[in-house]
């Protein structure tokens, strides 16, 4: 940098949105402003897969498996796909890993930037809508096979309960009740949650249910990784309550995953729900 002064654009009063700001001063940093050559990029980069989220009384849990794939290759065994977005929310990503991680970074900065400039946090719906517009601006790349589909969850301090939002590649935002899943193994994970989810879960039950659902996804979807007992790699789990969000320590997740796996040794299809 030759001129150490604050650039004039920085001193112009304007938007509290970080992405709007870099759109003006450094548009090349926005993924949506990049011009791509025609053709499909779907096979170029690793894909991240299954994310599940479920609410419980007093909070919400989000968990993601650790596998990234490129075609039939396992690109990474210990990728992290669930990130805190701010103190009371988190975001999990499925789709093109590189773009998704960049979008999460942009989203995190967006929330923090707003908080610092305005002196207050965005509402839960405000955060969900900002994420929506970030995804919408990625539509061009999604049409070339580089799609990003996040799952957003957090604790709404006004409503005083956990909330989950899912998205489509056009930026459509849908609020989910109780639980939801995205990614290649999401059909199996959602099916599992349908059968084992209960309204009266506490936080630990909810984490266990999420790990069960990821196990079922890994059971039937080759792109989703199950608990890796040999390498001790377990899902990333975020728990968010009125006290804020935290990532469950590896030891706690390992203990739950070990119990789930022990149960599967007895009954490989997992816990049975009653017929009626």
């Amino acid at each position: 940098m030759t001129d150490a002064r604050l650039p004039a654009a920085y001193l112009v009063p304007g938007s509290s949105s970080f992405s709007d700001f870099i759109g003006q001063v450094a548009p090349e940093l926005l993924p949506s402003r990049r011009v791509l050559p025609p053709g499909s990029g779907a096979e170029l980069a690793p894909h991240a897969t299954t994310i599940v989220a479920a609410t419980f009384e007093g909070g919400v849990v989000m968990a993601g498996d650790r596998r990234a794939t490129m075609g039939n290759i396992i690109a990474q065994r210990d990728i992290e796909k669930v990130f805190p977005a701010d103190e009371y929310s988190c975001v999990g990503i499925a789709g093109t890993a590189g773009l998704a991680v960049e979008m999460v970074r942009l989203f995190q900065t967006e929330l923090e930037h707003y908080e610092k400039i305005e002196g207050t946090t965005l509402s839960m719906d405000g955060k969900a809508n900002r994420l929506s517009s970030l995804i919408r601006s990625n539509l061009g790349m999604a049409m070339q096979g580089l799609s990003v589909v996040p799952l957003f969850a957090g604790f709404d301090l006004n409503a005083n309960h956990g909330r989950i939002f899912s998205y489509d590649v056009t930026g459509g935002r849908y609020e989910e009740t109780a639980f939801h899943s995205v990614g290649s193994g999401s059909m199996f994970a959602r099916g599992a949650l349908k059968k084992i989810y209960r309204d009266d879960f506490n936080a630990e039950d909810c984490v266990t249910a999420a790990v069960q659902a990821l196990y079922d996804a890994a059971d039937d979807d080759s792109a989703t990784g199950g608990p890796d007992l040999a390498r001790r790699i377990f899902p990333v789990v975020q728990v968010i309550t009125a006290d804020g969000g935290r990532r469950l320590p590896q030891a706690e997740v390992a203990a739950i995953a070990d119990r789930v796996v022990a149960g599967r040794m007895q009954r490989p299809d997992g816990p049975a729900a009653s017929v009626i």
Partner: protein
Amino acid sequence: MSMPFYVSPEQLMKDRADFARKGIARGRSVAVIQYADGVLFVSENPSQALHKVSEIYDRIAFAAVGRYNEFENLRIAGVRLADMRGYSYDRRDVTGRGLANAYAQTLGTIFSSGGEKPYEVEIFVAEVGDTVEDDQIYRLTYDGQVADEHGFAVMGGAADAVAAYLQERYQPGLSVEDALRLAVAALGHSETTDRQISARDLEVATLDRTRTQERKFRRLASAALITILGDTPSATPTVGPGAPSTEPADPADPVEPVTGEPEPPIAPPD
């Protein structure tokens, strides 16, 4: 062809400096104190909404006195600079020194360019380190000068009296409670009187290195301040009747004038 009046460069700079200094002296002081676990900012500010102390980035905070619209503009520019750098490089690459340098260059250019009026602001940029030795406090004046402060520093209207009070009593390694009590006593000190500033009229924030989060900045809410300082109603003079009223000022201007003629909050002077 008419000749403009000749004004010597010395006189020109002196006039501009006097103008800026006068604007700054009308506001209340902000004190910054290093304590064992970080850096503490204390200012007398009855407004709950218009802050003098703010977060810039993980380990960096900003405090200012003077004209609100000017320092608010600088604050937002600082947040933008920090977030931009953190986004395009890494969070660790955002430093207080870089930010102080950008402010210094900006203020210096505005001060010495004839076109604009000088900013009537003084700024602290503080960065908390892993140990007390790594803490950094920079004080920036209206003309772009930077001073590296250690232990404590004060700026604003009664800066000299407050700094003298701190000079006598400050010790390194204070707890946050002791540092707060000391700073509040210092801010209430003037040559003639000592007054107890109500906990409700204080704006207090810390950069606390013991916080587990990456973001070390924390505001101390009124309730926490009352626990530490005790509850005194607003505007209770402890010594003498001459203490200025601490009735909430015009909310558009947290920089309530202490002495001298009142100042219009936002409009630039003619």
